C-alpha cells in the first residue's frame, strides 16, 4: 500500500489543471445560477458536482459542454479559452440525463453517430463502434432501436455513444437517476471501471450523495451557485467545513453552543444524574400455559375461542461476557482543545481537536450518529450525556436510536448490528447514556 502513489493531482504544484473556471458568473435574467466561481479540475479526475436542485451544478456542466456561455469570467479547457467555442467544436462529450438516444437510429448507429461527423474511415468507425459495444456489453443489441432495450441498457448506450469519440472530458448529467437502486450500484462500479480503463476525465452531476461519494476522486458540494467545499469523499464526510456540508452529506447531529478554552485535564463539570427518575421495567413474564393447558386448548377449545396466540419468541438475554464485549473501551481524553457549553442541565462537551483560537465564539458541534455509543450504564468515556430513548429505527445492518437528552435536545445514535445479540436490551423509554470520544465531532462556524 505504501508504494502505491496516491492520485492527488490537486496537491501537486507541478500539475496543470485540465479545466479552469476563472471567476465565472452565469445569470439567467435576475437569477444568478453561478456566482463568481473559481475551480480547477485535473486530468483523469472523477469530479462530482453535488448539491440540491437549483444549486447551479447542471449550469456548471452545461457551460463545460458549451450549451451555456458564462455571463462573465472564463472557462479554460487545456489552457484554451472556451467561451466562444460551440459544442460541436469541443473535445468534450456529454451523457444526458434523459440519455437523449436518437429514437430513429439503431444502437449501432447511435454509437457511430459522433464518429460519422468526423473524417474517420468506414472501417475504423466500425472497429471503434464494436469496441464500444464490447466495453459496454451491448454486442447483442447493436441492431435494436432504443425503445426495444431496457433502461439499464439504454444508459450504457448513452455512455458508449459519449465515449466513442474518445473525448478529453466526459460530462455525466445525473447519469444513473433513472435506474433502480441495485442497478445503480452496479453501474457506479462499472462507471469507475470504464473511467480507469479509458483514462478520461469525468465530471458528474448528481444530487445523490452516496453516488458522489462512491465514484468520485473529489466531491464539490454546491449551494446557490457557489462551491462550499471541494475535497475527497472522506474529508467531506469527516471534516466538513460548514454545517451545510455536514448536513447535506449523510446524517449529523448539530449542537449549538459557546466554546471556552479547555484547561488540560480539568475535571469536567458533571451535574448529579438525579434529574432522570429511576424507571424500572417490570421484567416478570406473563404466565404461560403448561402441557395440559395446551392440550386442552388445542383439542377442545380452539374451535370455540380460536387459535392460541404464541408468546413472541425473543432471543435469550445476553450473558455478562457478551455485554462486556459490546461495551467498547474508550481512551481517555487528550489534553487541550475546547469545551462546548450548550445546556445548563448537561455537562460540557470536550472537543480536544477544537481550534483554541476560537475561544468564546458561538459554534456548532457536528457529530455523526455512528460515532455515538449508547449504553444503559454510565460508560467510561470523555463525553457522556444522559437521555431517554424515544424511538428506534431498525434498518438491519444498523439501528438508529432517537434519544432525547435532558433539556429536550434530540440526538441520533447509530449502532452497527455487528453481533446478532448486541444491545437488544435497550428499548423504548429506556434511560441511556450517549457517549463519544473527545475527537469524534467537529466544531463549525456556520
Amino acid at each position: 500500500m505504501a508504494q502505491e502513489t496516491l492520485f492527488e493531482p490537486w496537491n501537486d504544484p507541478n500539475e496543470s489543471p485540465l479545466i479552469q473556471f476563472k471567476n465565472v458568473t452565469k445569470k439567467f435574467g435576475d437569477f444568478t445560477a453561478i456566482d463568481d466561481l473559481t475551480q480547477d479540475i485535473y486530468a483523469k479526475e472523477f469530479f462530482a458536482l453535488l448539491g440540491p436542485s437549483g444549486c447551479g451544478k447542471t449550469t456548471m456542466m452545461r457551460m463545460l459542454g458549451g450549451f451555456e456561455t458564462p455571463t462573465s469570467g472564463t472557462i479554460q479547457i487545456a489552457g484554451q479559452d472556451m467561451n466562444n467555442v460551440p459544442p460541436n467544436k469541443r473535445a468534450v462529450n456529454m451523457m444526458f440525463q434523459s440519455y437523449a438516444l436518437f429514437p430513429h437510429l439503431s444502437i449501432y448507429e447511435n454509437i457511430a453517430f459522433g464518429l460519422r461527423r468526423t473524417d474517420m474511415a468506414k472501417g475504423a468507425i466500425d472497429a471503434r463502434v464494436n469496441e464500444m459495444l464490447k466495453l459496454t456489453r451491448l454486442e447483442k443489441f447493436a441492431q435494436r432501436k432504443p425503445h426495444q432495450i431496457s433502461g439499464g441498457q439504454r444508459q450504457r448506450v448513452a455512455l458508449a455513444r459519449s465515449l466513442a469519440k474518445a473525448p478529453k472530458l466526459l460530462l455525466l448529467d445525473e447519469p444513473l437517476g433513472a435506474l433502480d437502486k441495485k442497478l445503480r450500484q452496479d453501474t457506479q462500479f462499472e462507471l469507475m471501471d470504464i473511467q480507469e480503463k479509458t483514462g478520461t476525465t469525468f465530471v458528474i452531476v448528481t444530487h445523490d450523495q452516496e453516488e458522489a461519494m462512491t465514484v468520485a476522486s473529489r466531491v464539490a458540494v454546491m449551494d446557490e451557485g457557489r462551491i462550499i467545499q471541494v475535497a475527497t469523499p472522506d474529508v467531506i464526510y469527516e471534516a466538513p467545513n460548514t454545517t451545510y456540508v455536514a448536513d447535506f452529506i449523510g446524517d449529523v447531529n448539530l449542537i449549538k453552543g459557546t466554546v471556552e478554552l479547555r484547561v488540560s485535564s480539568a475535571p469536567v463539570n458533571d451535574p448529579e444524574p438525579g434529574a432522570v427518575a429511576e424507571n424500572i421495567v417490570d421484567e416478570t413474564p406473563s404466565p404461560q400455559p403448561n402441557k395440559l393447558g395446551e392440550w386442552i386448548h388445542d383439542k377442545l377449545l380452539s374451535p370455540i375461542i380460536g387459535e392460541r396466540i404464541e408468546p413472541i419468541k425473543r432471543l435469550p438475554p445476553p450473558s455478562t461476557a457478551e455485554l462486556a464485549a459490546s461495551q467498547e473501551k474508550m481512551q481517555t481524553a487528550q489534553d487541550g482543545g475546547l469545551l462546548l457549553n450548550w445546556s445548563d442541565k448537561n455537562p460540557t462537551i470536550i472537543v480536544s481537536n477544537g481550534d483554541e483560537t476560537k475561544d468564546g465564539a458561538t459554534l456548532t458541534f457536528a457529530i455523526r450518529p455512528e460515532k455515538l455509543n449508547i449504553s444503559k450504564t454510565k460508560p467510561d468515556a470523555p463525553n457522556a450525556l444522559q437521555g431517554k430513548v424515544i424511538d428506534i429505527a431498525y434498518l438491519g445492518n444498523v439501528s438508529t436510536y432517537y434519544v432525547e437528552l435532558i433539556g429536550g435536545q434530540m440526538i441520533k445514535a447509530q449502532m452497527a448490528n455487528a453481533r446478532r445479540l448486541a444491545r437488544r436490551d435497550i428499548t423504548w423509554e429506556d434511560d441511556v447514556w450517549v457517549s463519544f470520544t473527545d475527537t469524534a465531532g467537529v466544531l463549525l462556524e456556520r
Partner: protein
Amino acid sequence: MKRFSWFNATALTLGFAFLYLPMVILMIYSFNESKLVTVWAGFSTKWYGELIQNEAFLNAAWVTIKVAVFSSTIATILGTMAAYVLVRANRFKGRTLFSGMIYAPLVMPEVITGLSLLLLFIGIGLDRGVLTIVLAHTTFAMCYVSVVVSSRLVSFDRSLEEAALDLGCSPWQAFRLVTLPIIAPAVISGWLLAFTLSLDDLVIASFTAGPSATTLPIKIFSAVRLGVSPEINALSTIMIAIVTIGVIGASLISKQASLKQQRDEQAAARG
C-alpha cells in the same frame, strides 16, 4: 346500461345524416343516366366519360393540382421553419406577439385575406395567374402547417438536438439528421392538410386567379350558375374522394406517430 340505446342511435343517425346526406345524394346522382339532375333514370357512368373529354374541366383540374402541390410544399417549408423558431428560440422580444401573428390568419375571414392579396398583387404589378394563386394559398396554408408542426415540437426532447451538437453536428446537420426525421410525421400531415385546403379553396382563389388560370372550384362554381349538370356531380364526387383520402391519410399518419410515441414511452417506463 345498454351501450347503444335508441336515443344514441337516433342522435348518431341524425347527426351524420345532416353532415353527409347532401354529399351522398350528390354522389348518387353522379351515376344518373338522365340529364335531368333530379330525375333518376338508372345507373350509368357516362358523365364520368364525358367529364374526361371536357377540356375546360381538365385544364382547371390540372391547374388546381399544380397549385396545391406547389403551395403546400412551400407552405410546409415556411411553416416548419416558423414553428421551429417559435418553439425553439426561448427568449426574444415579441415572441408572444409573433406566435399570435402566426395563428391570426386562421381566424381571418377568407374574403379579407383574398381581397388584401388581390390589392397587393395589383400594387406590385404581378399578373394574376398560377403564380399568384400559389402565393395566396401558401400564405394561408402555412399557418395550418406551423400549428401542426409546433404542437409536435413542443413535446420534442431538446436534449436530442443538444446531443447531436455535442457529437459534432453543425446546427443544420443536427436539424437534418435528428430533428427532421423525428418530426417527419407531423411535417407530412401538415403537408397533406395544406394540400387539401388548397384543393377546395374557392374564395381566395377567385380573388387571385386570372383569366389564364382557373381552378376547379372556381370552374364548378361558375358552371353551376348556368345550371347543375350531372357532369358537375361526377366532378364533385371525384373531388370528395381526393379530399377524403387526403384527410384520412393525414389523420392516420399523425395517429400512427402518436401511437408509436406512446409505445416508446411505455417501453421506456417499463425500463
